[in-house]
């Protein structure tokens, strides 16, 4: 019952979580009325038919007359066979809608995540190594600024200054430019900058605070005394234990931001990505798209948590798996 078994169990668990969450969302949506059904009633009335009957017909047509458990089973089967339904408000299959949107979301979220995960802990560590120097204050100031400024607010202001006043960046996101092109880099620079500024602060701070605890730990002092190189001390004796508590927050935090920020930043910069897809779907009560995007976000979150747990166990040898 070692690491292997633990990982197997965690992966299995990830599937369970996804399943539970999607079921909850499905339940929430099943409880709310379907706009298409009342539309049918109106139409029937306009044609001199019986609205109640028409409503019934519409329910049948949309499979809403089946008992609840039957609809649920159908839905779950659909999820696993990748038949995620048809979007009423976009008139295309849900999977297609999600893939379309994902294409744009990925373009800014990959550079964003990479920058945050690489730069965050490093700057934090650097800060704590030079605690209370002007560099630390500058880094802390930047972290706080980024964290404190609401990213949609920041985005609008940057767009106003650099897009409208100075004309350096396009005001409207252009979907026609190739992914790897200068034009695309220019138009994505602002969203990525806003997102990085907004999310790096927390990572920097947690790693600074945590690593400053380890800076004074006895084993670091010992290492220093033994004459271990500065780089090695930071890399091995400070960064690694810092990553343990950090890893518990960073993934959850980033995922939280992924949903929230992607939505707002996409609205501000008019990027037709996943966040906006979801927001529109909720507003328009496009049930199948809401479920599809929720499923997707949940999947990402679960996988993220899984990775986080694995990292946690690998990094902290003190935790043992045998009894939990």
């Amino acid at each position, binding site marked *: 019952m070692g690491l292997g078994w633990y990982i197997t169990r965690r992966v299995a668990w990830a599937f369970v979580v996804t399943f539970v969450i999607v079921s909850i969302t499905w339940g929430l949506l099943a409880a709310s009325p379907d706009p298409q059904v009342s539309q049918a009633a109106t139409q029937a009335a306009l044609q001199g038919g019986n609205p109640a009957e028409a409503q019934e017909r519409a329910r049948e047509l949309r499979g809403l007359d089946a008992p609840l458990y039957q609809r649920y089973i159908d839905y779950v089967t659909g999820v696993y066979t990748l038949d995620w339904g048809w979007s009423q408000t976009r008139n295309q299959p849900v999977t297609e809608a999600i893939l379309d949107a994902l294409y744009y979301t990925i373009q800014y979220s990959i550079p964003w995540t990479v920058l945050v995960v690489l730069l965050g802990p490093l700057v934090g560590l650097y800060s704590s190594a030079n605690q209370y120097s002007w560099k630390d204050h500058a880094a802390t100031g930047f972290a706080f600024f980024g964290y404190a400024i609401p990213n949609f607010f920041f985005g609008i202001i940057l767009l106003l200054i650099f897009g409208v006043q100075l004309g350096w960046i396009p005001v*409207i996101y252009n979907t026609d430019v190739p992914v790897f092109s200068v034009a695309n880099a220019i138009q994505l620079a602002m969203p990525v900058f806003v997102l990085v500024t907004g999310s790096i602060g927390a990572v920097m701070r947690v790693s600074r605070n945590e690593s400053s605890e380890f800076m004074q730990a006895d084993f670091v002092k010992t290492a220093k005394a033994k004459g271990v190189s500065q780089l090695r001390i930071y890399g091995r004796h400070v960064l690694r234990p810092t990553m343990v508590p950090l890893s518990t927050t960073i993934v959850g935090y980033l995922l939280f931001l992924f949903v929230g920020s992607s939505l707002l930043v996409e609205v501000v910069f008019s990027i037709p990505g996943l966040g906006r897809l979801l927001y529109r779907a909720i507003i328009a009560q496009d049930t199948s798209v809401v479920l599809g995007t929720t499923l997707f976000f949940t999947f990402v979150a679960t996988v993220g948590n899984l990775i986080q747990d694995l990292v946690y166990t690998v990094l902290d040898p003190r935790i043992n798996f045998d009894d939990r």
Partner: protein
Amino acid sequence: MSSPVETLNPLYNSEAGAGTLIEYALDPGYTWRPGSEYFPLAYDMTTDNGEVWVANVREGLQYGGDYGEVTAEDFVYQITQLHQSEWAGTVDAASWPSEVNVEATGDYEFQIELPNPNALYPETFDPYVYPIPMELMQPYVGNQDAQGLQQDTEILELQFTGNLGAYTLDQWNRSSGLSYSRNDDYYLKNAEGVPEVFTQAPYFDSLEVQVVQEEQSRLGALESGETDSAAVPPNRVSRFRNLESTDVYVIPQPYNEVCVYNMRDNGWTTGPGNLFRNKQFRQGLGCAVDKQRLVTGVFRDFADVEYTWQPRWSNWYPQNADVMQFGTGELYGSEATRSRIREAISDTDYSYNGETLQNPSGQPVELSLYHSAGQNTERSMAEFIAQEFGRNAGINVSVEAIDGAQFSQNYWQQQVPENTDQYEWSNGSYNAGPREVTSANAWDMTVVFGLNTYPLNPTTASVFFQRDSSYNPYGYYPSWNASELFERASNATNDQELQSVFAEIFRNIAEDQPMAMLAFPADTVGYAAGIEGPQENFFSGWDFPAWYRNE
């Protein structure tokens, strides 16, 4: 554009915005040019007596692919097999009741036989149909497959349009926008009886429509030249007028701004009895809001004050009739409001306690007023109304924002009862029955919806004023003989008769105050300087294919 379109399927689209997008690529049957003049596109319509209308389909209209030429058969098939069918549920279904008889009388001619004569039939937009190839619809008709028809890619993405539109739709990216390219074969180029400028049409090589949710970004793009057109909110018009790179056109439109009172049983949530049902009370409220201040303060004068269900520029506006002008002059003010309300409540337990109107249990009357979330002008209007009601009528109004779709579904539309037979009428969710049939949630007042006044043919507006029509979410029972007057209007045979009936109708509407009729805001649209085509009248855009850029 501020929000994406749901569908481009001409059979299932009910939104005006998407309609415009469809028409870039697919011309409908006809349109109206300035002066309320019929302008034939796919077909011309003529009549002798208003009862039988003959439509002549233009020759030389070609679908794309293998669908061949557009014939009368296509239209007749569409109307009889889809719009008049039980199963398809198209949006035009209401325009084609089964009593209307449609048949092809030749390759390029079909006739429409109406149950009652209607001299203004094309003006109702009932016979407004898009050409769609019969072969495309047939498989779905055979299977009665409404869902399949709605989801058909060829119809949905307008791939059959051939030479039928000035532009061809290349790509529809659901959330970001649409791109079109110039259609070299556009049929109107060679058509007779069209203005000279069409011979070279269309003038733009490509057309991009983008969905940008942020108003700030849309205007920024207009200012920086990234886009050629965007709606400009009233507060910004003078700024964009002063810019060299943009022009702003003030385009009147037929939708009014109304504050609707809920006269159904779940309205007037502040105490027993529903005072909104009392005409005198409604008249009192009509005196509470200063309409001129509203028009200036909210719309910066890019709107007209509204007293009755017709804009001033309409041919049917009763110029000489004595229409009561609530919210102006003597019919405005605290005293005008209170005296009417006092009279209205004289036989109830409501009373004025000093300045404040109280309900029978001695609590101040408090009403909710809903507006669409995120709509700045609408919120300003709601807050102004709330303040005026407080000041002039002594009624507390709490202003609440709500998403439009949400409001429509849970407040505006009623829940259709299981057994519709037990009610005198039940006409679908917008009028599912008499006042005891209500929506899921209670509400008092709303400014979420502006309603169409149909300036081309005001008889169409009759649905708003009849107890048992298909559209009466607010539970209005007219105190005047609405059905009879509208009946007379639809049967009128000449203009003079129409004028006098409409004058009578509009006088009654103004007096009865079914809702607070506030203003006719104009569309204020900004265009890049040098774009020739937009006009400052209701018909602007009728000749869109002939618009060009003046370099």
